[in-house]
């Protein structure tokens, strides 16, 4: 069934759960280094852990104050109330991703609740997404399934567990049901997650790299027949790890459910897994008795009671809301509506902004991120932000703008940056990419080229300036492209008259 037909018959209702890994130096309840902190994501297995992360006997959790501050800031940025008293709770389940057999989370007393977030869609329409709550918890370890043909759990012989991620501070943000999205429901889901990503990056509380799992989204989707009040049975799609996937997964799930309902079937309440490669979801675990997590207050931790002073201090330090920020940036950069909207829609606003802040011109920053970096990222099926940092791009732009690199050389420097060869300056040095700005070397090459093409020289002397192209080409070739063509042209015309 196509999407429009599905929408004709049913109204989609979505709900989104976003997990944000905080980039504190240490974990939520342990002083182990946090793999979600900047630059710490590639540690060897089980080297970022303490006895607390393993739940060893006698170890006790202690709350990371920075993580509480970050959580409050995020709650405030989402327009939430901050609870005068909030508490941690144990969520009990048996799965080896946590060694304790429970996850420390928050249950009926989350730190933040009742908020809303304005989300701007591609055409500029603003949708207000109601937020139910945002609570603090700890992330779980990573399992690698061994054996089995596909590396998935089916058919695996055993699993290997790395607890580096166990205990990473998380904030889980849960929306209320989002009604009225209609055919834009998939787009709203994507824009909502993109907005949260922008907010946590502006707050500086998460690296927010989706491809590394710093920001993860579970999408709840249900359909109800037109005119029906009661909500339909929902499914929860997990493993949605890019903005593009969120939109696709919600869209797919709407169509899948519509086919079942239209055929007289019923939806099973279950988790579903998104498969990036095939663009479909598959059935995971049905909701069952095992979802009885027997939450109870965590006896090892004390209540969190932020003072009003602290809350107001953090509120005063909040960055501009994304919509206001966008209005300001558009004016500052002098971009046209379409130019600016393209940057927003590409999800590269923060990269462009940081590149400009690091010294690049607005036009050049946009050109690099929207052009070369997006093209390479697309070819490699990764996010542009995973290729280079705004600081590196700004450095390349500055080298181009000061005449030390041509665009062509700059692209080679970018290649080096992506390959991890060092800073742009180091790459220019190591690869010998500097523009030849020594007129002496250029003049020698020009004189040689003119001498070997006397017919061209005659034409130039006759005023046929366009003939100079052949000489410029020869000189650029002799310089291996590392010369500024405009300067070469000037010198060629000068030498021809000499």
């Amino acid at each position, binding site marked *: 069934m196509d999407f429009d037909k599905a929408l004709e018959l049913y109204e989609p209702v979505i709900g989104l759960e976003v997990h944000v890994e905080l980039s504190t*130096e240490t974990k939520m309840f342990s002083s182990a280094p946090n793999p979600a902190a900047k630059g710490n994501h590639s540690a060897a297995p089980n080297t970022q852990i303490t006895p607390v992360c393993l739940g060893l006997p006698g170890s006790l959790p202690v709350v990371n*104050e920075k993580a509480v501050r970050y959580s409050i800031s995020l709650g405030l940025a989402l327009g939430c109330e901050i609870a005068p008293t909030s508490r941690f709770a144990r969520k009990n389940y048996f799965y080896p991703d946590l060694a304790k057999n429970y996850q420390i989370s928050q249950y009926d007393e989350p730190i933040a609740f009742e908020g809303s977030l304005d989300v701007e869609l591609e055409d500029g329409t603003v949708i207000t997404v109601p937020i139910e709550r945002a609570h603090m918890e700890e992330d779980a370890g990573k399992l690698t399934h061994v054996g089995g043909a596909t590396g998935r759990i089916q058919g695996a012989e055993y699993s290997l567990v790395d607890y580096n991620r166990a205990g990473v501070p998380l904030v889980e943000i849960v929306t209320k049901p989002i009604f009225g999205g209609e055919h834009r429901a998939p787009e709203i889901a994507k824009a909502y997650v993109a907005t949260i990503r922008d907010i946590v990056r502006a707050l500086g509380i998460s690296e927010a790299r989706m491809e590394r799992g710093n920001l993860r989204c579970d999408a709840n989707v249900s359909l109800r027949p037109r005119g029906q009040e009661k909500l339909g049975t929902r499914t929860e799609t997990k493993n949605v790890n890019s903005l593009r996937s969120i939109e696709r997964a919600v869209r797919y799930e709407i169509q899948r459910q519509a086919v079942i309902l239209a055929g007289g079937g019923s939806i099973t309440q279950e988790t579903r897994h998104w498969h990036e490669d095939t663009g479909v979801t598959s059935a995971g675990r049905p909701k069952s008795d095992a979802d009885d997590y027997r939450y109870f207050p965590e006896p090892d931790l004390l209540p969190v009671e932020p003072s009003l002073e602290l809350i107001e201090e953090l509120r005063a330090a909040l960055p501009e809301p994304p919509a206001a920020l966008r209005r300001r940036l558009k004016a500052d950069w002098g971009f046209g509506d379409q130019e600016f909207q393209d940057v927003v829609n590409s999800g590269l606003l923060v990269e462009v902004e940081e590149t400009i802040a690091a010294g690049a011109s607005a036009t050049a920053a946009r050109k690099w991120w929207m052009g070369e970096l997006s093209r390479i990222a697309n070819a490699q099926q990764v996010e542009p932000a995973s290729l280079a940092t705004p600081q590196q791009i700004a450095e390349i732009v500055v080298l181009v703008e000061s005449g030390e690199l041509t665009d062509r050389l700059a692209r080679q420097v970018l290649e080096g940056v992506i390959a991890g060869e060092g800073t742009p300056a180091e790459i220019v040095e190591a690869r010998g990419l500097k523009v030849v700005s020594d007129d002496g070397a250029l003049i020698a090459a020009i004189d040689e080229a003119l001498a070997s093409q006397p017919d061209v020289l005659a034409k130039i002397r006759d005023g046929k300036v366009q003939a100079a192209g052949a000489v410029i080409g020869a000189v650029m070739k002799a310089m291996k492209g590392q010369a500024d063509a405009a300067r070469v042209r000037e010198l060629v015309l000068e030498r021809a008259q000499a």
Partner: protein
Amino acid sequence: MSEFSTEQVRHLAGLARIALTEDELGRLAGELGAIVDNVAIVQRAAGPDVVATSHPIPLVNVYRDDVPTETLTAEQAVSGAPEHDGSRFKVSAILGEEQ
């Protein structure tokens, strides 16, 4: 006396991964009922002026600074594990999934 059915005990035992015989289920239903009754007596003593508490000492906001300390090595981490691959814990493939 509180009613605690064997079905409730069976459900809880299942969640806690504890294998119980029919005899044990029946006996525990009675014992758990007695425990609940005793808790109910304590509850009578707590009037509306006593707020719910999960901790005996009135302490809040006990925090730690965000400063990393020493970690275990991977060898130390897996040293007590029945099975491992040198740096990671080896567990049987489980037909479940993360929560």
